[in-house]
């Protein structure tokens, strides 16, 4: 699995993502946002961070980067695109995913481990997880509050496009388990074709025991298995 890890000025989870891809046996390459070179990659990943200092809105300036035209084209061809944290914000701003991520309801930057439940285990990003499994994965964001119009939200729920939801440790959707005020405790969503996933929690920071959790590893092994069936 050849993965382009796209870096913007202000990306800061790019190395974590690179390492996570390497850890499962993938071949990551950093691609600078001005270098429009996505040919030959099996997947594109947009890392977390604070691209362009979150000026205007988180992800709004990065979305105008030269490479984003290529990322959009890659996604429209059916190529797998994963956006984590700031990457999720950029995907929403770019229109590859619906809705927007606004200021946390708590007004605080939330940096802690949370529990999320796997709502879809049949996507190329989540196939190594069991449906309903509860993962412990860190979040670190100030703007992770998922908002969308009522019609969009109904469509997301109706089509089963919520990939992850914030839950309590025992898997219940509760207000207390929602770290940022997201509608319906949404932590991650997929597009209608299922080849674009955006999520606020950081699976790449939960890939080794020394990091406190390995629950994020499944995301990368799922992608590896889905994208390289011959080698699996």
């Amino acid at each position, binding site marked *: 699995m050849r993965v382009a890890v796209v870096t913007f000025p202000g990306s800061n989870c790019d190395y974590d993502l690179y390492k996570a891809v390497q850890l499962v046996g993938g071949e990551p390459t950093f691609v600078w946002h001005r270098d429009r070179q996505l040919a030959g990659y099996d997947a594109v990943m947009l890392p977390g961070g604070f691209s362009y200092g979150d000026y205007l809105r988180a992800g709004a300036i990065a979305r105008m980067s030269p490479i984003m035209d290529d990322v959009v084209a890659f996604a429209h061809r059916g190529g797998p695109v994963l956006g984590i944290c700031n990457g999720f914000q950029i995907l*929403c701003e770019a229109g590859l995913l619906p*809705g927007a991520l*606004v*200021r946390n309801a708590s007004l605080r930057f939330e940096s802690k481990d949370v529990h999320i439940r796997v709502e879809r285990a049949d996507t190329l990003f989540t196939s190594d997880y069991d449906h309903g499994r509860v993962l412990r994965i860190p979040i670190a964001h100030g703007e992770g509050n998922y*908002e*969308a119009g009522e019609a969009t939200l109904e469509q997301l729920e109706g089509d089963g496009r919520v990939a992850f939801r914030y839950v309590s440790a025992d898997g219940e959707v509760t207000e207390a388990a929602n770290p940022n005020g997201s509608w319906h405790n949404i932590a991650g969503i997929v597009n209608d074709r299922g080849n674009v996933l955006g999520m606020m929690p950081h699976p790449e920071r939960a890939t080794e025991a020394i990091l406190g959790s390995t629950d994020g590893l499944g995301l990368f092994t799922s992608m590896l298995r889905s994208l390289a069936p011959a080698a699996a």
Partner: protein
Amino acid sequence: MSSHRIEIRVKPRPGLLNPEGKAIHHALVSLGWTGVEDVRVGKVMYLDLDAPSPEAAVEAVEAMCRKLLANPVTEDYEVSVVGEAEVVG
């Protein structure tokens, strides 16, 4: 062509939670302004633009709002000409 100063008011959509406004509301009430019923925080941007007419300037800035300056999911915007552009110190 002349340079027009444009004011853009980006406002949070009604009905959406506005956490900054909520925090300011609490602060005002705690300072004794108990009659404050609601606070919502948006942004004001000023932009100087060369255009053949004020109408053309507004049209161009509205396109900028749709493309970049406002998020259609969460924000509304109003564009108005506030005068000729000038160098301010």
